[in-house]
């Protein structure tokens, strides 16, 4: 591969604190140097002052493969990911069949490798078939490459099962990721309980369903010494509990997703099913609490929570429509909206998308340093674009941000030194 010299870039590496205009040399798929020394025969790219950061590490996404290829294949997810600057993607195990067998974990990893643009790190199923009953083979799944364990979009309901999972996972140094929603309280709800759900006549999910699950699982983390990670946290009450648990030194971490700091429940007005998510969009106070938790560091990562749905899943009466939103292509742009709004500094925002999730997983990705893999994202921080249904890269078009104007646009993505987008 010809060496590549990217010049005149604002190089941003949150892990080392680097934030300076300079050049970066890529050789043999790795970052060779940051000194700007010209290399013999290197191809040169003038970045024109755009921001060069590590390729994004997305902690949480659903792909349709295996089992729902009509919604999204790994190849189509990779196309969307590359357009969003994502080079490492952790996929959920509640596929069909569920990733509860080492061979399936290996299969998904290989399918990721085959795209050439994306490293897929699957979460293993915490319980067999993600049914919430018997633990799956954590040891064998971990050996096969599972980064940790979760039942994906389903909460691990019974306290005993969660206790065993947190306890057993310690033997393999893995975390257990929880969908924080108390199942019996959430029931068949379709929207956050409150005035809007009442007006629309939709069955509600009380916001407290999240805090209740989080409180229980913090207690179980304390009991077992295990590491619990709460995914897509969306309420102030749950974030308060997590903040407190962290202050006590418990092994508790969390992520959130762009809809929860960019949208509130009013997005479902007029029965707009693209804005039907799980957990449901919350009221404005909760959105503001999520923003505050991004600022103060309580949130460890921003994940896309990408959930592909097709027209048949969404063109239904609201309560029957499937929850979830496409999120790969918009992950960076919606996060940058918090930077433009003055809530986050650019390096902080990029850390939430790169070095911090990488540190959580204990992986090599998510940093710019000599010797590190040349997984890179080059973006123009203020160039505007509009999210439009039908125009998004990849198969899934069900963006809750449909119509939203975003400021901040990926112009190039590299995977191990090879350009995969732009």
């Amino acid at each position, binding site marked *: 591969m010809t060496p590549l010299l990217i010049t005149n870039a604002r190089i941003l590496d949150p892990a080392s604190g680097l934030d300076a205009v300079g050049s970066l040399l890529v050789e043999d798929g790795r970052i060779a140097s940051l000194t700007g020394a010209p290399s013999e025969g290197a191809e040169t790219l003038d970045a024109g002052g755009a921001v060069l950061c590590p390729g994004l590490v997305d902690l949480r996404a659903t792909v349709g493969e295996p089992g729902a290829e009509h919604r999204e294949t790994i190849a189509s997810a990779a196309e969307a990911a590359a357009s969003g600057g994502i080079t490492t993607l952790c996929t959920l195990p509640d596929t069909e069949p569920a990733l509860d067998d080492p061979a399936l974990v290996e299969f998904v990893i290989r399918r990721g490798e085959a795209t050439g643009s994306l490293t897929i790190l699957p979460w293993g199923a915490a319980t067999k078939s993600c049914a919430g009953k018997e633990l799956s083979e954590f040891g064998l799944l971990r050996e096969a490459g599972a980064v940790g364990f979760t039942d994906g979009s389903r909460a691990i309901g019974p306290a005993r099962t969660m206790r065993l999972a947190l306890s057993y996972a310690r033997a393999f140094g893995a975390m257990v990721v929880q969908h924080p929603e108390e199942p019996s309280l959430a029931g068949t709800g379709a929207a956050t309980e409150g*005035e809007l759900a*009442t007006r629309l006549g*939709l069955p509600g999910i009380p916001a407290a369903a999240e805090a209740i699950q989080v409180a229980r699982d913090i207690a179980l983390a304390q009991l077992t010494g295990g590491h619990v990670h709460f995914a897509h946290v969306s309420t102030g009450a749950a974030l308060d509990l997590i903040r407190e648990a962290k202050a006590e030194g418990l092994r508790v971490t969390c992520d959130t997703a762009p809809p929860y700091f960019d949208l509130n429940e009013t997005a479902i007005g007029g*029965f707009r099913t693209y804005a039907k998510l799980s957990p449901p969009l919350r009221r404005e106070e909760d959105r503001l609490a999520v923003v505050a938790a991004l600022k103060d560091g309580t949130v460890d990562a921003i994940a896309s929570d990408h959930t592909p749905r097709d027209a*048949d899943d969404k063109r*239904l009466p609201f309560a029957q429509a499937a929850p979830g939103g496409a999120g790969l292509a918009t992950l960076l742009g919606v996060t940058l909206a918090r930077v433009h709004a003055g809530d986050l500094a650019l390096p902080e925002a990029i850390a939430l998308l790169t070095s911090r999730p990488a540190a959580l997983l204990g992986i090599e990705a998510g940093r710019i340093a000599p010797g590190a893999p040349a997984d890179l994202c080059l973006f123009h921080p203020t160039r505007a674009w509009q999210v439009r249904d039908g125009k998004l890269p990849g198969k899934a078009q069900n963006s809750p941000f449909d119509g939203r104007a975003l400021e901040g646009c990926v112009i190039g993505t590299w995977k191990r030194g090879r350009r995969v987008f732009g």
Partner: protein
Amino acid sequence: MSGFSFPILPTGHLLAIEGLEPPHISALLDLAESYALLNRQGKTQRDLLKGRTLINLFFEDSTRTRTSFELAGKRLGADIVNMSVSTSSVNKGETLLDTAATLNAMNTDLLVVRHGQSGAPALLAQKVDAAVINAGDGTHEHPTQALLDALTIRRRKGRLEELVVSICGDVLHSRVARSNIHLLSAMGARLRVVGPPTLIPSECARLGVEVFHDMRAGLEGTDVVMMLRLQKERMTGGLVPSSREYFRFFGLDAAKLAVAKPDAIVMHPGPMNRGIEIDSAVADDPARSVIGEQVEMGVAVRMAVLDVLSRRLRRNA
């Protein structure tokens, strides 16, 4: 009946009361009132909807609402087709849009829809050329019921503004309650809802109502007592422990009604569960109960709605 100087239903559909302005509501009630008079005299314009096709598309069982729309359409001369789609075969909703495509191909003018899911008529309205009338969707709205209730009240009381109206029972699952709350509060009535906390929707007070869990307190000095049907399956859902307990505390009987104004009227959207939410002695008391008149006004209101919507059909027959 001559034209109006402003569009009464500006969207071309009647999907909800929420969003309608008081002048729209008054105009619809005025028109319905004149249809009520004509109906009593046996004189109606039998050719107003001549050549128009009205389809009653019912995904939930209903006898009275469907019959009421059918009669309203017939009195105005429309061609009417009743389609009852059994709920067992249509739970996926895909069929909902398939059905919409079929009806569209048949050049339907007016589509009356009842569906078990909130928002289903709104979804249909996006996909068909016909004017869509919501005849009840899930726990969202039942706009023609609220209009007929308002017309009944207005005829009995001469006004809507400043009246105290107590809506009692299973408000949580009631589309009738929601439409009535929106309509009557828009028209200046003072709304109360009365029921056990498990049957009152979350943050109901933010809809502009006063919430009571003690029925006597909720009925004290009220002008209108509007009872709601308690769905029997709610009891199996554990929201109410038993029908006898429900009737004891939230059923309307003469003793509880005694605290209302002496001329208070009693309403029920039907069908009634006698002995559960309402005592027969009250339901059948001609001095208090206006339940029969509600049914009569139902036809008049639906004629008015069909009339208004047919004036602005996107596709001219």
